[in-house]
């Protein structure tokens, strides 16, 4: 082995001799079978910046560097380019030109699905195809769940918790990521769903230390801490999702027990927390606001005096009410029939022309704690005409829950539980074309794509 050429020739010869055709004969067939049933991912997830399949998603900055390397740029060139971009952006800001456009998001007739499965978060096509796991946290990551798209569809918030703690909620964090799964920021939180502000710039979450409601920007900076009403404490493990007031000026929380109201409003202006009057639509946390925030839909039940103390579940009956956000113009859209009760989670369609809700058929006496449920039914009501369409049913011990309309309003995302297995389904709003999207997942959100994109 004397001389570089001899060494190189020897190495090349060894490679040629050693590279025997030993590929398994069925290997290619297995790959083709596996890929034939799937579709290529959309370009926005396949472009440089998305992670390789099977690899943990990398942070945004490192992905950017990887993209530069892919273009064959040196570090020095990259730094010069970076400085040039910074100068350009700074100049543009000075002259009031909005050069910093957000990263492009997919356009199309349907949004994309973020869902939980086995403690991980996936982003998939709207129909559950081509899932990509985006939550791949530290080795002691116990799981994650409750993915929620920001209203503008540019970010995703979900909960992540460690497995090493006896109480997972004590170690829970709220994670903000972009649609490709690159983590933007994370901050401590408790086990309640992250709540986006209407303008998609902030997230409300319970703060584990102070047990107040903390408001974070999507840059991870804590902007405010909203204290609970005097005399109230957050009972550990017994707290509810927060709700952002549609005007963006306060956070609504549910405290239990409470008088004179369960629902309290925590204003951002420094004012003291105040109870929400019972006749205010906001007095139920399951109130749903239309996309423009001007209308509210909620379920009202018979007065508490008509209930029995043995029945902690929502009472029989119920009315689906639509009102203006300022409580005026109340209109009963649907009233439960005898033997039915309405579930407390109506959902507006994107164009605010329809509302989806759940009806539970039940023939048990009102005083029984465990009513003999006959089945759940997912229905859609046309707000203008009052016409009701049945979309799906779950007879017997099964149950349904409606999650969201598709961005175009032509489909509904819902969960169906049967034999203790909850799965994601979607169907057209006329009840046709029901599809099983993800078996074993009960937590999901469709991405909302605003009309300006």
């Amino acid at each position, binding site marked *: *082995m004397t001389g570089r050429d001899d060494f190189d020739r020897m190495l090349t010869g060894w490679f040629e001799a050693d590279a025997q055709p030993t*590929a398994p004969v069925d290997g*290619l067939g297995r*790959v083709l079978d596996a890929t034939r049933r799937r*579709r290529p991912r959309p370009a926005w997830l396949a472009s440089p910046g998305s992670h*390789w*399949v*099977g690899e943990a998603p990398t942070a945004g900055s490192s992905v950017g560097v990887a993209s530069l*390397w892919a273009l064959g740029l040196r570090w020095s060139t990259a730094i010069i380019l970076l400085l040039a971009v910074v100068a350009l952006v700074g100049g543009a800001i000075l002259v009031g030109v909005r050069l910093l456009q957000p990263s492009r998001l997919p356009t199309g007739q349907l949004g994309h699905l973020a869902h939980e499965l086995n403690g991980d978060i996936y982003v998939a096509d709207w129909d559950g195809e081509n899932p990509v796991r985006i939550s791949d946290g530290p080795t002691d990551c116990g799981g994650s769940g409750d993915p929620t798209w920001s209203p503008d569809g540019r970010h995703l918030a979900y909960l992540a918790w460690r497995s090493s703690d006896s109480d997972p909620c004590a170690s829970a964090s709220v994670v903000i990521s972009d649609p490709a799964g690159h983590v933007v920021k994370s901050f401590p939180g408790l086990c309640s769903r992250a709540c986006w502000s209407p303008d998609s710039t902030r997230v409300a979450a319970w703060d584990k230390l102070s047990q107040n409601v903390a408001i974070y920007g999507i840059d991870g900076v804590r902007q405010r801490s909203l204290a609970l009403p005097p005399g109230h404490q957050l009972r550990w493990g017994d707290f509810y999702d927060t709700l952002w007031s549609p005007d963006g000026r306060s956070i609504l929380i549910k405290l239990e027990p409470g008088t004179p109201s369960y629902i309290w409003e925590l204003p951002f202006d420094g004012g003291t927390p105040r109870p929400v009057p019972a006749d205010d639509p906001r007095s139920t946390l399951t109130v749903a606001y239309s996309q423009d925030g001007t209308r509210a839909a909620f379920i009202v039940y018979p007065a508490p005096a008509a209930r029995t103390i043995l029945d902690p579940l929502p009472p029989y009956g119920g009315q689906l009410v639509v009102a203006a956000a300022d409580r005026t113009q109340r209109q009963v859209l649907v009233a439960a029939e005898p033997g039915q009760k309405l579930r407390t989670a109506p959902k507006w369609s994107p164009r605010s022309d329809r509302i989806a809700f759940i009806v539970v058929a039940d023939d048990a006496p009102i005083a029984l704690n465990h009513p003999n449920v006959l089945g759940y039914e997912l229905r859609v009501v046309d707000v203008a005409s009052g016409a009701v369409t049945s979309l799906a049913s779950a007879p017997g011990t099964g149950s349904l829950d409606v999650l969201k309309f598709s961005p175009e309003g032509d489909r509904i995302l819902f969960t169906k539980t049967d034999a203790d297995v909850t799965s994601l389904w979607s169907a057209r709003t006329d009840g046709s074309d029901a599809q099983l999207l993800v078996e074993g997942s009960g937590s999901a959100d469709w991405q909302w794509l605003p009309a300006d994109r």
Partner: protein
Amino acid sequence: MQRDLVLRARNGDHDAFTALVGDAYDRLHRTARLILRSDDRAADAVQESLTAAWLHIRAVRDPDRFDAWLHRLLVHACYREARRIKQREVAEIHMAAPDSPAGRDAQDLTAVRDQLERGFRRLTPEQRAVLVVHHYLGLADAEAAIVLDIAIGTFKSRLHRASSALRVALEADERTPAVARESIA
């Protein structure tokens, strides 16, 4: 021809994708086997890279560079495969019979290959990859840098270091008694 296949595959034509990867399959497997030194692990890496190729084929901006892109997927898959299981590797010792009719030349050739095998196994997966891409695939520096997802300068320096490391490993092997070599392997 390949350009047309890539464009069709990018639009979701699975038959075009089948034609593309069918031509490349054996070559990919040989490359992975050289880097990973294992048929089974090479098969896993190839399978992972081809699956990724289909799912991410819309990332191919220049259809003429599909091969480079595919090899880059393979190299990344090999890196992951190499790190996935830190299992003890068992060297395959090729023994020539003392009275083999192949004669003295064949025994010498076998000894050199064994020596190369042991030296090559001492390198990191990144060092193996840079040598395989250069000496087996025969790619030009710029193309090799793309396949390895590194800058050209980095490729050149890494190639130099990998060659030096292999030389050092081979020289160390020559100084190591045969009994000790088996325990190292």
